[in-house]
């Protein structure tokens, strides 16, 4: 892949990003070209989940995804506004459950939970939802409050 423009719909806005090098990761395009720093850089090897975003509604590790691979896609990041109802609900559940401490894994967790709920729905078995979060690491909370946030989402009416 050579350098060239990448077309993305980011959080509802169409963007054409010129001259993106072929090997550039979506993570770096979001953070350094679009200045969307809410998506966090952790390991850059796909092990921590801090960089999780939604691509066409599905959760995606932006550190292992080339920007050109998702050319033409819709990308949702933590900066998305309150009219994205699913992300807004996840944010509210995290706040109510106190499901964050340092906050570095938080954007990735919020997007991963949103992606899971979109894919499986709140009626999915609890174990299935929790297993779906095994790729997101958190060092502060011991996951306890994050699990409480997921439980809140499951008991709420959608």
């Amino acid at each position, binding site marked *: 892949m050579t350098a060239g423009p990448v077309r993305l719909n980011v959080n509802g806005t169409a963007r054409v990003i010129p001259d993106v090098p072929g090997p550039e990761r979506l993570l770096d395009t979001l953070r350094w070209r679009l200045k969307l720093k809410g*998506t966090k850089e952790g390991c850059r090897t796909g*092990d921590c989940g801090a960089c999780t975003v939604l691509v066409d509604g599905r959760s995606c590790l932006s550190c292992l995804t080339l920007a050109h691979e998702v050319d033409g896609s819709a990308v949702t990041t933590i900066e998305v506004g309150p009219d994205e109802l699913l992300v807004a609900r996840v944010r509210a559940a995290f706040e109510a459950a*106190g499901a964050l401490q*340092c*906050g570095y894994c938080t954007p990735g967790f919020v997007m991963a939970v949103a992606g899971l709920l979109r894919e499986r729905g709140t009626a999915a078995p609890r174990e299935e939802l929790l297993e779906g979060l*095994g790729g997101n*690491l958190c060092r502060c909370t011991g*996951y*306890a409050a994050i699990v409480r946030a997921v439980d809140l989402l499951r008991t709420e009416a959608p």
Partner: protein
Amino acid sequence: MTAAARPDAGVKLAGTAVFGTDVDVPGMLWAAFVPAPLAHGRIRSLDLRAARALPGVTVLGPEDLARFFGPGERDQERSLFAQGEVVYRNQPLAVVAAPSALEARAAVAAVTVEIDPLPIIADLETAFPEWPGSDVGASPLVAAHVHARHGNVEDEFRGADRVLSETYRTASVHQVALEPHACVAEIRGEVWYVRTSTQSPFGVREDTASLLGIPESSIVVDGTWVGGGFGGKGSSFLEPYALLLARATGRPVRFALGYRDEFRLGRTTLPAVVRMETAVKDGRIRARRVRLLLDVGTSLPGRDFATGYSIGFLLGPYRTDAFEVEGYAVRTNKPPFGPHRAPFAPQCAFVVESHLDHVARELNLDGEEFRASHLWREGESTLLGQTVGPFGIAAAFERARATARAWRAEAPPGHGVGIGCGFWSTSTGAGGEVRLRLDPQRLVVLEGEREIGSGSVLAGLTAVASRVTGLPRDRVAIEYGDTSVAPYDSGVYGSRTLGALGRAIEEASVALRRTLAERLGARGQAELSVERGEIYAEAGERRAALTLLLTPDEHDAGGLVADGRHYAPSRLIDDRRVLSGTFYPYTDFTGAAHVAEVAVDPGTGAVRVVRYAAFHDAGTVVDAGAAQAQVEGGVAMGLGAALTEEAIWSDDGRLVNAGLLDYRIPTLGEVPPISVEFIEGFAGAGPFGAKGLGEPPIVPVPATVAIATRAACGAHVTELPLSAERVARALKLL
């Protein structure tokens, strides 16, 4: 218990909180280290010319320090670059700045270095293969030595019914803050300015000044949001290099570590070997001998602390009339040792608890009763002859025993239930100052620490300020300042924030309320309240809106100001017990007893923690939600140290598992339900009798899991972590 909403939830959930990795200044360059390609050797040549010839690239090596920055009073013991000799793999030889990360990597690759290899001491086993059978005292590898004794140790050992001796080994564990170290430096006129993700802006300032040989007053450190610290972000690391490059290039410089380097270069807990000997008579401990070999890597400063502070934890919170402790800091070809949440205390608790459980088993005594009957009570004496203050560990242990009994009654075959305990001493003694500013709408707490996630600032200090002034929490705001405007504070470490800054807030609040009482023509302290959106003060018979009590100057300056400080009195230690080395007194005793139920796979030895309960003496709990969250998170981190976390070095000094796939921290599915209970009634030195809680929750965890594992399957594992392989070996499956 419902969790209180965190004041930082909004920015963190919107993605607008700027962490160290997020700082973005137009025109900034990207920095990278030129790493040493081997762990020990003499540098024959370092050729930076090809790298310097690349467009837009600046390279600084050892010789440039003097050339660029004159003969300042630089710290000679800790040089920024390897000088003459390389002592650990990836040690910085030089540092580059380039317009992009890619170009910085290309510049690093263009450096050529010739190094004549020297023998590598990769670990304690290479350094002292015969230990504890051999003496290490005179070895040049010993960087620090501590030795203390009390009572008639020889006589007690001679007169004992039984003497039990064991050797334990503990692994190196990494902090794994998800945000790697990151900063952006700029030179603004005469000011060396750096924005950085740190637990201690003032510590970075002091340390950077000493490393660069420039006055502290010319450096300004501004903290960003911190993506986890856990001890790893307590002093300067990348900042001096980024500042040097900014000075040399005239451009802002971003320096962020990749995660692999975070592992390779991070300063953390290194391995240890401990020899425990216990003399028992009539079912009581009569004397103990503890010897410690602690790998301190290439540490220079801090090596005394590493041994002199740690070794006190090796007697545990248990009464011993006679003891001898001796510790050696051993130099190896690893990066410097550094603090990791409750430095070395979880490892010590694992050794102490496992050993005492073993002693009881050998004597056919009940392990829990044996430990419970020796636990410190208030008024007893520590290793160094300090008196133990109010301390709820025995009460916590009793609660843990009740839970363990209930769980045992329900546990299926193959499961085991165990109790472990541990103590910690919070560092409220280190100085802290705050400024309170009261305006007609709100109270601002101006202080020099950033919230690092634990909640100690935004939950803890907010709660304290609310309680001492009587204002509701939503009227209290925390304002961080950079080091040019904030009151001095030594940083977020040692579980000290709540205690030290909380007491400083108490003092400032008294001053503030006295001033208001005077202005109302009364004595004592004014009471504050909020009415129709405005703050009122009341004293004696008078009451007035704050807006009427402020002078015009105060209105201009943003409110009425009062300062508070807290420097705890130093605690004396009994010097007669110290034979050599530097020991450190403990300040505020916090303790916990934990219970784990584990299941052990009889075929593989894999240990799974099924449920967990934690009982903590944290003095007075000031924010229930934040306190519970600290314990849950600390337990999970401890489960990693107990079961999977181990930084592994090869014989040639290479960290072989430098990544999150191979260095395994617990994932969501691996952390069991954790119940948390606080044992109140044992007041600490903090405000309203609070005790620090950042570190204590991790301390008992590896011990608890080890004791539960032995109960489940009989495996007596004397090494951390309790990997499936180690358990299987103990069960003779391998």
